[in-house]
């Protein structure tokens, strides 16, 4: 039986609680098991990015708790939380968010450097990751010299660098053309299958939703449906 990797328990998030309260997420219970490939869907303003951020420890819930791999991250201090993210969670953002002054190789290696991995080992892993995402010929290119799809693949390689158990991706295909999006999804699906990495996407993109094995739909900050499906 698969182990629960993310347990969001009765999680709520209210913005501007003292002025004009906005209840972005309300009493949400979500359990995600190791190796799942989950799409978090819903209309704009439904709270999917907020929920994703709370599950990744980027946002603090107003109420409830988030437990990742047995660690209640809502109880961690700021620095411990940053360290926890560094070792356990990979992030892929909508607008790639690479470090513009570093090459593809350096961007991927950055996380490993923060983990103090020895140089030789680090370089080997970076090359392996960039090969996995099909960018072995772009290792010395800076983000500005890469296409959107290539940048997002570097971001995926960076997210994978620390061998995280979970990758959280916020609208990862939103800025990509169809071909790049399909290519990226294939890479992610392969990693999910072969390395048992848990993927959680917030998305509107039907291409992503079709690839997911589980689709959680949020409406007005609440879970409207949570269904398993056979990916196409």
């Amino acid at each position, binding site marked *: 039986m698969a182990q629960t990797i993310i347990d969001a328990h009765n999680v709520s998030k209210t913005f501007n609680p003292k002025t004009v309260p906005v209840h972005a997420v309300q009493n949400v219970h979500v359990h995600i098991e190791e190796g799942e490939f989950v799409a978090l869907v819903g209309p704009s303003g439904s709270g999917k990015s907020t929920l994703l951020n709370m599950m990744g420890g*980027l946002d603090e819930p107003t109420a409830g708790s988030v437990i990742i791999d047995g660690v209640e991250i809502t109880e961690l201090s700021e620095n411990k939380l*940053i360290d926890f993210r560094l*070792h356990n969670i990979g*992030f892929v953002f909508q607008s790639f968010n690479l*470090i*513009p002054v*570093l090459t593809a190789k350096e961007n991927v290696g950055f*996380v490993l450097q*923060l983990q103090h991995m020895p140089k030789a080992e680090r370089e080997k892993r970076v090359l392996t990751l960039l090969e996995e995402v099909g960018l072995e010929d772009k290792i010395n290119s800076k983000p500005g010299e890469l296409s959107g799809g290539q940048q997002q693949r570097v971001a995926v390689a960076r997210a994978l660098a620390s061998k995280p158990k979970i990758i959280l991706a916020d609208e990862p295909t939103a800025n990509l053309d169809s071909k790049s999006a399909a290519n990226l999804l294939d890479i992610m699906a392969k990693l999910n299958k072969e390395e048992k990495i848990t993927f959680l996407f917030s998305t509107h993109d039907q291409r992503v939703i079709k690839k997911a094995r589980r689709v959680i739909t949020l409406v007005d900050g609440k879970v409207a449906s949570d269904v398993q499906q056979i990916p196409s």
Partner: protein
Amino acid sequence: MLFQIAWRNIWRNKARSLVVISSIIIGVWAGIFILSFSWGMYKNNIDESVYIQLSHIQIHHPTFKEENDSKYTITNTDEKMKQFQADNRIASVSSRVISPGMITSPTTASGVKIYGINPSSEVTQIRLNEYVSQGAYFDSGKENEMLIGEKLAKKLKVKLKSKVVLTFTNTKSEIISAAFRIGGIYRSKNISLDEVNVYVQQKHLQELLELKPSESNEIAILVKDEKELDTIKNFSVGVVPNGKIEDWKELSPELEMIIESFNLYTYIISGIILLALTFGIINTMLMSVLERIRELGMLMAIGLNKRKIFIMIMLETFYITLIGTPIGLLTGWLTVTILGRTGINLSMFSEGLASYGFSSMIYPALDHDKYVIIVGMCIITGILSAIYPAYKALQLNPSEAIRKI
């Protein structure tokens, strides 16, 4: 890696970084130039005072300066002079007879300080011969020859070869009047002194004052190396045991004050320039932080802790300061070195400058310790300027920062 990212970050917006670096260069250069120019003026003033007026050390009878009476003398001057001349740390030594008095021309009169000098020994001492603008420096061999300042000559309405009368009190408290002929008119770099000091042959003044040939009121010493000043003062105690021995700082405390106030001035000027720079750097770095909010949020999200974010921003500012400061320092040093040799000619303001005792040729100069102070203050400025932008970066919440457009 942080060092590398910080370094590359400053070149993301080359124009902006270059503007800040240029402002640091100009600021440091301006600071050095203003200080060196001021110090050049003051140093010149001090040197003029020491070399033309005071000498490094003066020895008097203990009561002479209080009573201002030429009867208080140093005895056996010749013998003492020989002892000083034999010491190779001493550049030159001369004895003087001094009396306050009144100079009278056919039209007017004025109070003066009469110096009885040995013209040959003063050539290397106060170098008065170099400042003679009309006539000659005691070349007639006549005992009643006199040298007066240009300003005093103008005041008395006398010319070269004019006859004037000096009136003073001799050692027996009798009033003496003696006629002198103006053999030379000098113009030193300190007009106020030119109006007061008149120079006559020592031997003649000794006779008029009824002093013995071996008596004098002042022994003035110029040392070769000013670092030896204290040891030579100690040596002088042995030569003139009952004399009052004073160095130039004791003789003219205002000169010492000039040096002290200049040190304060260094900090004030540097402080003002660096304060202006601080705001420039803060503004630029703040812009740099604010336009990278999303990137900083991403860095926090993927695991860069706030301490490292803080260090990264600090490093960026530090690098900018570190590039600008040495260039500013080098250009400043070059300017001071070149102008220190050629000088800055302010002859159009010579009258005004001379009335305050300043030369119209300014040779900028700055001690090495002042350069060190400027560098130190620049580095502190860089660090202080970085704190606020770095602090602003720490206030970011990663999830909000990532959402920023």
